[in-house]
């Protein structure tokens, strides 16, 4: 029955531990991470892997052997040759885009059961020959005679060999031409976010993650993964238990040198990871007798100045609330992806500001203040890491789990997107018992 509107339910989800990149390529390519996270998730479902209607995976930089990485992952997961799979890209929100694409297909009745998520292996980002070197190489191989070869050889310059670091290019805005860190500096400057605030925020991120880990809260969310060298990975490796505002204060700014505020310590970590969710419509829930854990209510995307991309959540979140006729306090929990402490704090400042909300978000006045106890309570990109394609799916999964744990109802997961966008997703926990109030 196409065109029938159906509700979109969250059935289950899992992610790999997020592994901090250590300079060299890590043990897992993006598709490996997708397989490692997906296999245990699928093994615990009451339906077989080939019963998905489609598989959607967000990924910013798949490897050269991973063209349409969603299809690669889908086949390797045993979802079957007949299950179509497609890869989506919306830079840092690719994982959330996958969920949104799955949701729209389910809502419209085109699909009933979808595996959707995001994967990224930032440590596997390519290092490339420069185009000038490739051009020189082509000229050299075209030269047939010995003198021609000699002439071509004479045109060689050592500078041609300078590699292009794919990761650095990826983290530079292709239009505005400034680095992501610089966009964070820019929004911090605009809202007067102090270095001390950023460092305090970063330290708290680690502190909160440490507490959640010690509490065992991630055991249900993270599936252990194994490399071929005999290592098991069970926890996010970016956590620094010894992180304090004082220690963070000693780090030098990396982007606006030497006087800036954004440091490696108060920015998200370069990380490898994958998160998957199982989404289903009513028909699939009935067919497989699935236990519904939550509902995906709405998603909103917004565009803004690329040089101020860090304010994306402010721009995407406000209309999402308006459209669903919610006030800030109707949302029980917030996940704002921590690309930079500066940028999260700037978003909060923007929502507190009458002027900004009026002029840029079309509101009558300030949206309000988010209670820190309802925001990123188990850490975020700064401590957990931010594998760009995967984070969008991770924050939705985690927000749902926080709702379940605290018996809260609604959450918004939102993130900023390189290139000047914001994405925000509204979810609701499934009723498990009558609410107290």
């Amino acid at each position, binding site marked *: 029955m196409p065109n029938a509107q159906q509700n979109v339910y969250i059935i289950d989800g899992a992610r790999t531990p997020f592994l901090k990149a250590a300079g060299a390529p890590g043990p897992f390519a993006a598709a490996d991470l997708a397989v490692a996270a997906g296999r245990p998730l699928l093994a615990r479902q009451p339906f077989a892997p080939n019963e998905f209607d489609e598989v959607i995976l967000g990924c910013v930089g798949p490897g050269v052997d991973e063209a349409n990485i969603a299809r690669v992952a889908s086949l390797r*997961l045993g979802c079957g040759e007949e299950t179509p799979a497609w890869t989506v890209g919306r830079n840092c929100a690719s994982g959330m885009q996958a969920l949104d694409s799955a949701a729209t297909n389910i809502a419209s009745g085109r699909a009933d059961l979808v595996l959707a998520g995001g994967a990224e292996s930032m440590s596997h980002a390519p290092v490339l020959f420069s185009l000038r070197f490739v051009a020189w190489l082509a000229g050299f191989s075209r030269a047939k005679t010995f003198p021609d070869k000699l002439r071509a050889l004479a045109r060689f310059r050592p500078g041609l060999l300078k590699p292009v670091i794919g990761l650095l290019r990826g983290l530079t805005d292709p239009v505005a031409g400034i680095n992501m860190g610089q966009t964070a500096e820019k929004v911090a400057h605009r809202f007067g976010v102090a270095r001390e605030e950023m460092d305090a925020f970063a330290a708290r991120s680690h502190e909160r993650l440490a507490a959640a880990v010690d509490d065992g809260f991630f055991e249900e969310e993270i599936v252990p993964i194994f490399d*071929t060298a005999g290592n*098991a990975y069970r926890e996010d490796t970016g956590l620094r238990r010894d992180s304090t505002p004082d220690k963070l204060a000693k780090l030098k700014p990396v982007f606006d040198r030497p006087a800036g505020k954004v440091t490696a310590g108060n920015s998200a970590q370069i990380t490898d990871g994958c998160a998957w969710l199982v989404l289903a419509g009513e028909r699939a829930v009935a067919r497989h007798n699935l236990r519904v854990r939550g509902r995906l209510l709405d998603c909103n995307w917004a565009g803004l100045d690329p040089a101020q991309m860090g304010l994306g959540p402010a721009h995407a979140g406000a209309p999402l609330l308006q459209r669903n006729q919610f006030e800030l306090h109707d949302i029980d929990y917030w996940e704002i992806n921590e690309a930079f402490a500066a940028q999260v704090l700037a978003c909060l400042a923007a929502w507190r500001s009458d002027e900004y909300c009026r002029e840029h978000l079309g509101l009558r006045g300030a949206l309000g203040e988010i209670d820190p106890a309802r925001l990123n309570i188990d850490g975020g990109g700064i401590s957990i890491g931010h594998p760009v394609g995967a984070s969008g799916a991770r924050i939705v999964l985690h927000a749902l789990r926080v709702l379940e744990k605290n018996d809260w109802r609604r959450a918004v997961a939102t993130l900023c997107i390189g290139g000047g966008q914001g994405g925000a997703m509204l979810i609701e926990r499934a009723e498990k018992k009558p609410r107290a109030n």
Partner: protein
Amino acid sequence: MAQLNNWRINSESGWCRLTLDVPRASQNVLSAEVIAELDIALEQIERDAPNAVLLCSGKERGFVAGADVREFAKIESGEQAAEALASAHRVFARLEALPMPSVALINGHCLGGGLELALACDFRVAADSESARIGLPEVLLGIHPGFGGSVRLIETIGAPAALQLMLSGRGLAPRSARRLGVVDYAVPMRQLESAARYAVSRPRLPDGKLKGLWKTVMASLPARALMCAFIKRQLRARVRREHYPAPYQLLELWRRHGNDREAMFAAERESVAQLITSAASRNLVKLFFLREKLKKIPKETGKETAHFSHIHVIGAGVMGGDIAAWCVLRGLRATLHDSNPAALANAMKRAHNLFRRRLKSPRLVQRALDRFQPDPAGDGARRADVILEAIVEDRAAKAAVFAEAQKVARSGALLATNTSGIPLEELASGLRAPGQLVGLHFFNPVARMQLIEVVRGEQSSPDSLAAAAAFAARIGRLPLAVKSRPGFLVNRILMPYLLEAVQLLEEGVRGEIVDRAAEQFGMAMGPVELADNVGLDVCMHVARNLTKTYGGEAPGMLAQKVEGGNLGKKTGEGFYRWTRGKAQKEKADSDARTLAAIEERLIFRMLNESVACLNEGIVDGADSLDAGMVFGAGFAPFRGGPVAYIIEQGQEAALRRFDGLQERYGERFAPCAGWKELQLGE
């Protein structure tokens, strides 16, 4: 023209297609009849004079599996063998001498006589596949190529490569065969016929300068002698001449006649005729049939092997992990459950090493890894076709595993334990359907040992036992049905042998000497090294378990080693010191008499226990016992197994030797009950 049963001749526009299709057989073998009919077919082809001959197989997969081994057993004398070989030689020479080009279209396995047949053609094209094998495995049956293959393979690819292939009996994948020049082209199956036509259309290039020079050098006796000496040194490290004379004779053949085609043909026939009637060859042929028989068991019970696609292994120790990895290598999916992530990580590493070694291509390795799933949560049990338990030997823990497994297992799933000592009946007692539980006892190292003991508990249902045998076949292993008595068959017979070895060590004999005595008898590995390999703690555990039931006691030295934490290979020290996976053996001198005395003590304890097992009906007969000990314990294959060895000694003579042994070494050499009743027929 006479009616041909095995061959078809079709001619079309100058191309003659000569197809071998042995009726009522799944694969082609070269029986005397097949060869005689080939002679008739060739006669007709000579008359018809087509432009070219395509030699094909009528079987969908597989060219020719080899000579008809069933006929080996019927050969009574060397003369009879020589006669049969001579006629084959005549027919193959006729094929080789055809005036028009001939091509063998190799569409799968092409082994032994099959390759010799293909080598008599002008060209060989093979269908590329991962599983097909091309080679001359005759030495594994105690003979060497006898249809002129030794001459023709050396001519085709040169002596060094050819000898290496024939001496090892190794089969090549088509692509490797192409690289060595055994076949001219390896192409996808769909291109087999066009490749054959292409091969014929191209003139064969004359030998290059280097190859020509090489041939000239090898035509001289001193050069061949030098090379033989070199190869012989490598050969000695693998097999002993007194046990396996065939490779040595083949080498000698080439050394003497390498420059004279006809003389080498004649010498090849003579040598094979002599080898084929030797005891070693007869025993190896007997084992060949025992293996075939074990392979066929699942078919006889009518169980499907194909439906096994997912195994769930509980316990990621070395055995559990290796079993899961082996199943994956054979195309299954495996979920490996263990609550200890470090154990899973280690299993993953071992699996990866196995895949890399066996599969080589990175894509195949990745596909295997994708089917190998560490499963800390144990979710894999729900969809598995087989749930195999391989945790520590703890009765309560194992029982708990099965109680849990039966709750989640899908209906019809096979429940199996890899226990080596705990009675199945006790593990099954708490189950809703106790009949579902059987034993699948694997041997270490899993990837090398061909046998699985399929253990029949009192409560095991015939259906589950049949499924277990079918599963063993699915993963390319030989299922041996054994009764659920402590130690089953293989460990039970090995244990007295190992304990006797420890006893010898206690008496002050060096481990090197003990091992040498056993290897001299023909055991794949000496008992001291074997114990270190298995792990002294495991040996200790099994020994305690067995002595409790069958009497006797474990020598104190074993317990001392275990208490000292020296558990063998895995800890770097046991009876030997181990570095990089190798036992550090020192030089130790001994005389023949001492070695013979040690050998007698080691072997006769095994023989005694073998008779006890027969008497108790642990397996269904002498053949099964022999197969179990050869395929599961590395008992000297050329001796045909313990019972075959008793027969060779003569039952009475063997029994008499216990008198002396008992006198010198005590009660443990008292012949067990059963020798009297033993009815061993020739």
